[in-house]
């Protein structure tokens, strides 16, 4: 195993300690010893453990299928350079960089992550990461409630349903109430001219859950007219490469998930949430922040700063309870952005848009299917299906295709709607296969009737 102690070591150490036996030293008080067996499988030698887990991985047939699933988790190309550097022991096995002298590598990388997030969102300041896009949204609501002294938020139904579920879970415990902004027939948020005077935040996702580039600017105008902060949510961070920035659209806080920047879909995590804002709200940011400074010899150095906001200093008065964040995921995103650069990120984003449009055309050409494309989209859009979308998705699975997400999972009224996604990894052949499969399924369905 991974412990180095020989029986002689243990004996000699016990003698130094003055304890009669390892059990005497380490047993819990009488009465609290575990009675009976613990239900843990017997130890496996390493080679068998490797094979055992390999077999579990191989059982996941869905990982090998052609996939048009997005909906908050996106399959993108990961340049081999990214894990090669990110998983260096010196990054992987380091602790939180509280000791600046021993952590300049991690600290500078976080400073670079903060900068990338600011450059992508147009905001002034970014924190060092939060757990994922959904908790980034929760943190933004806490910031807005603190900034405005209000306890209600307005959130678009176009925000990812799981993000909204997480917000609802926290909001119930925190005593914050939520009003929903409906969507119009094109899947865009219906924004009122003004919000009620007790609304702390107006929250819109763009591209929204249906893939549409949504009405952030009108929400920001209405928000500012009513004294609310505007929160821009992004689940597909790659879209930031080409779309107007949250700042340009008038957002006060930009939050989202940066999974698309080099992190695998990984059955749901770990991913990496970001929270960026204007200078005005810097002290309300949750969690760690890295700043640039100098050491006693005048050398440039990086250090955790504004720790007076954080739980280890301020305890129950902290701006958030977050401690451990997603540092390694933020490092992966940083190395990804460095590796692909402006040129690569732009071309990858364009490949996503090109493939999504090719997919939309191919599907629109299949009799019985329609594409909701009246609102502009990035790499995701809604398909109207001639048979229930959930049933269609099951049929395509049997052909080795993950067709997309049936929207009835989250919007029960949308039984004939499938959310599909194309990325730079989607091929012409996959699109042709998908269209052929839809044609055949539709033919079968019509024949069956």
């Amino acid at each position: 195993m991974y412990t180095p102690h020989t029986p002689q070591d243990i004996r000699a150490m016990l003698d130094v300690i003055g304890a009669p036996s390892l059990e005497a030293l380490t047993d819990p008080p009488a009465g609290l010893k575990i009675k009976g067996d613990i239900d843990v499988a017997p130890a496996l030698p390493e080679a068998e453990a490797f094979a055992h887990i390999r077999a579990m991985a191989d059982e996941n047939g869905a990982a090998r299928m052609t996939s048009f699933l997005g909906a908050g988790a996106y399959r993108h190309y990961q340049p081999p350079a990214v894990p090669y550097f990110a998983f260096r022991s010196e990054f992987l096995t380091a602790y939180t960089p509280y000791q600046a002298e021993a952590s300049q590598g991690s600290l500078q990388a976080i400073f670079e992550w903060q900068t990338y997030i600011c450059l992508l969102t147009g905001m002034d300041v970014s924190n060092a990461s939060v757990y994922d896009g959904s908790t980034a949204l929760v943190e933004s609501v806490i910031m807005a409630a603190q900034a405005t002294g209000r306890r209600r938020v307005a959130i678009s139904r176009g925000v990812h349903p799981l993000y909204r579920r997480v917000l609802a879970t926290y909001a119930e415990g925190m005593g914050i109430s939520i009003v929903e902004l409906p969507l119009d027939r094109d899947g865009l948020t219906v924004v009122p001219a003004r919000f009620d005077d007790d609304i702390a935040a107006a929250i819109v996702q763009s591209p929204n859950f249906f893939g549409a580039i949504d009405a952030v600017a009108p929400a920001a105008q209405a928000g500012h007219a009513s004294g609310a902060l505007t929160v821009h949510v992004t689940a597909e961070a790659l879209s930031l490469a080409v779309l107007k920035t949250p700042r340009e659209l008038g957002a006060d806080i930009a939050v989202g998930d940066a999974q698309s920047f080099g992190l695998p879909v990984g059955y749901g995590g770990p991913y990496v949430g970001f929270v960026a804002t204007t200078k005005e709200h810097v002290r309300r940011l949750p969690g760690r922040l890295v700043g640039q400074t100098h050491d006693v010899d005048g050398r440039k150095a990086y250090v955790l700063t504004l720790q007076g906001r954080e739980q280890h200093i301020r305890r129950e008065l902290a701006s958030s309870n977050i401690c451990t964040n997603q540092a390694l995921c933020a490092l992966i995103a940083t190395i990804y952005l460095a590796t692909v650069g402006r040129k690569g990120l732009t071309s990858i984003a364009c490949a996503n848009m090109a493939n999504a449009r090719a997919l939309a055309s191919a599907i629109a050409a299949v009799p019985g299917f329609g594409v909701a494309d009246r609102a502009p989209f990035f790499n995701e859009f809604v398909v109207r299906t001639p048979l229930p979308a959930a049933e269609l998705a099951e049929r395509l699975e049997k052909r080795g295709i993950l067709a997309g997400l049936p929207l009835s999972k989250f919007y029960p009224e949308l039984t004939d709607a499938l959310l599909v996604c194309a990325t730079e990894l989607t091929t012409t052949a996959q699109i042709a296969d998908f269209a052929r499969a839809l044609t055949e399924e539709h033919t079968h369905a019509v024949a069956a009737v």
Partner: protein
Amino acid sequence: MPSLLFEQGAPGRGSDFVRDAGAPKQFLEPDALRADLPLPDLTELEVARHFTELSHRNFSVDTNFYPLGSCTMKYNPKLNEAVSGFAGFTDLHPFAPDHGAQGAIRLLWHMERTLSSLFGMDAFSLMPAAGAHGEITAMLMAKKYFKDRGEHERLTCFVPDTAHGTNPASAAMVGYEVVSIPSTARGRTDLATLRAKLDGTAAVCMMTNPNTLGLFEDEIVDMTRAVHDAGGLMYYDGANANAIVGLTRPGDMGFDLMHLNLHKTFSVPHGGGGPGSGPVGASARLSPYLPAPLMARDASGTYFWDEDRPKSIGAVRAFPAHFLAIVRAYAYVIVHGAEGLRSNSRLAVLNANYLRAKIKEFLTVPYADYCRHEFVCSAEELKKETGVRALDLAKGLLDAGVHAPTMYWPHVVPECLMIEPTETESRYTLDAFVETLRALVARAHEDPAAVQQMPLHTPVRRVDEAQVGRLANKGIGLRWSPPSDAQS
């Protein structure tokens, strides 16, 4: 100091990753597009040099001894890394149908059953992403539990003065009033004070056991009884669980709720501050409130996600688990088995007591009892005699290639150094650490100014935290800015 990425590169550098598909304006109207994307273009070699150089400016478990109290910086086995990288896991989409993800759900299900058995809980949720995330999850569960019972007046959360800062911060997020319970001269939470403060407003008592002084709360059963008698719930902060795995169980101590840090106790790497994994366990009366969905297995042995949890608080992150972190922890469990896990906890306690016995020859160890997996010592006397503080000793250790212990916390011990060696360190490493620290203390007596200057040999020396804080308050110095608006 290596220059920033943004000060390197030149437009057009770097590989072609995809075929040219055209320009953004071919796909979207100009009013939807950003004007410019001001990111640097770098060659892969520039990226390689940059991040390799940064990595050389870090301490890490693979390069340095890390006696960092309450952080459990044990070795991170490379088996864990390899298996978490299998394509059957990394390429699996969270919306994949359950029948195409049987291996993944099965792994999570077994991990959950293992944790429930090891810690005496009815069920665990693997959803929380970190320890503090587990804490807030449990506070939300407690709040909903009392709401369902109509006990709206239960809004007090009791937290020992030695608790992690996340405890009061998590409790405050759900609107609980935090009441701090002092420690006794024996370094244990004061049961008499707790009893005196318990009343009909009691919601939760959050306890770490062993506590952050490294001492087992030997009155834990009486505490649990007192809190339960007052109608409150007991919460176990699993930050120090590495001392107890296979030896005793929070469930048997009477805890209703708990979290674990798989990145401490179960060898998931810390990654420079995350990602972690903070599963939350619950007793039978609280488990209906766990986040949903939960892993389940039907009569035919098929695994599925159970969404039908009507009392659940909801969800605390978008998808049900930090899956790839849990794969790592699962690998750790299956190569150890129950006996291996128990042995690790025993050896962690042995290593801590060995250091304690040797270090008390030259630094004050304030509590007489044997410790568990960690212990605290104090540089208060040294400071009075020489002016050298705990901070200076910690910085001196950095010069010797040893990571600093946790400092100035818990606050009940002045000039506190909290030391946790973990079970994976050898007697040889522990002996070398003791001699390094002994020499530093001796140096402090001979030449205190020299120790106060340390570190001398790290990539940077002590940094100016005051200046950066003043600017950061105005939002300055927290990012690189283009030269044109460098004042911003």
